[in-house]
């Protein structure tokens, strides 16, 4: 199950709508091992494409170094589909490289850049196996456990 706060959910949806018809992509970082998606980072889609996304390699290194310095990991990896359903494509499955992350797919195929609901679904992708999970949107994440 993915538990995500409303502001982060809205931020992902807004990013997907803004970049439509190209795919939008990014992550939500959180403390290592916490499963808390706390810090939304919108990434540039270096492919600039309606059918493919790829983090820019230089921007991606900066992102990971920043996360390492904060003891964070990518809790959510998200991208949008702009003409198809919010389900991982074969390419998504083949390239999935964060076995601990929630892979969020947003589909903007219904309303594009405009107001209106989107499909927002979450998956685990491990060793080529996809399993969908529930998404629970909360007003705010519960307080972090003291560690």
């Amino acid at each position, binding site marked *: 199950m993915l538990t995500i706060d409303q502001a982060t959910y809205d931020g992902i949806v807004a990013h997907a709508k803004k970049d439509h018809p190209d795919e939008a*992509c990014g*992550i939500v970082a959180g403390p290592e091992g916490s499963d808390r998606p706390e810090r939304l980072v919108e*990434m540039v889609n270096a*492919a600039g494409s309606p*059918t*493919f*996304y*790829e*983090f820019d*390699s*230089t921007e*991606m*290194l900066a992102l*990971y170094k920043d996360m390492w310095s904060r003891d964070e*990991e990518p809790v959510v*990896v998200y*991208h949008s589909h702009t003409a198809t359903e919010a389900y*991982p*494509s*074969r*390419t*998504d499955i083949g*390239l*999935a*490289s*964060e*076995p*601990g992350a929630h892979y969020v797919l947003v589909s903007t195929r219904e309303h594009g850049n405009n107001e209106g609901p989107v499909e927002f679904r979450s998956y685990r992708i491990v060793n080529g196996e996809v399993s969908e999970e529930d998404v629970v949107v909360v007003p705010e994440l519960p307080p972090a456990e003291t560690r």
Partner: protein
Amino acid sequence: MAVEVRIPTILRNLTGEQKAVTAEGGTLSAVIDDLEANHPGIKDRLVEAGPGDGVGLRRFVNVYVNDEDVRFIGGLDAEVTDGDQVVVLPAVAGG
């Protein structure tokens, strides 16, 4: 010529869950061969056949030497010197 190599989560099963390991070599290619000697299986995750008879870095694996994407500094022939930091990051990509 020892360098530190940062290992991504998905390859840590090959390094005994270590986040970083040391390796030796004067080029990225030599560093990868040294990694393979100590962590068998890792080379195949980093390089693939081609172009021609040779091998090249896998398309969806990013390798950086001192923050430079090696694709811009010679690929597998990129020079590596003592104390350099090598980072391996699988591309975050899809369709």
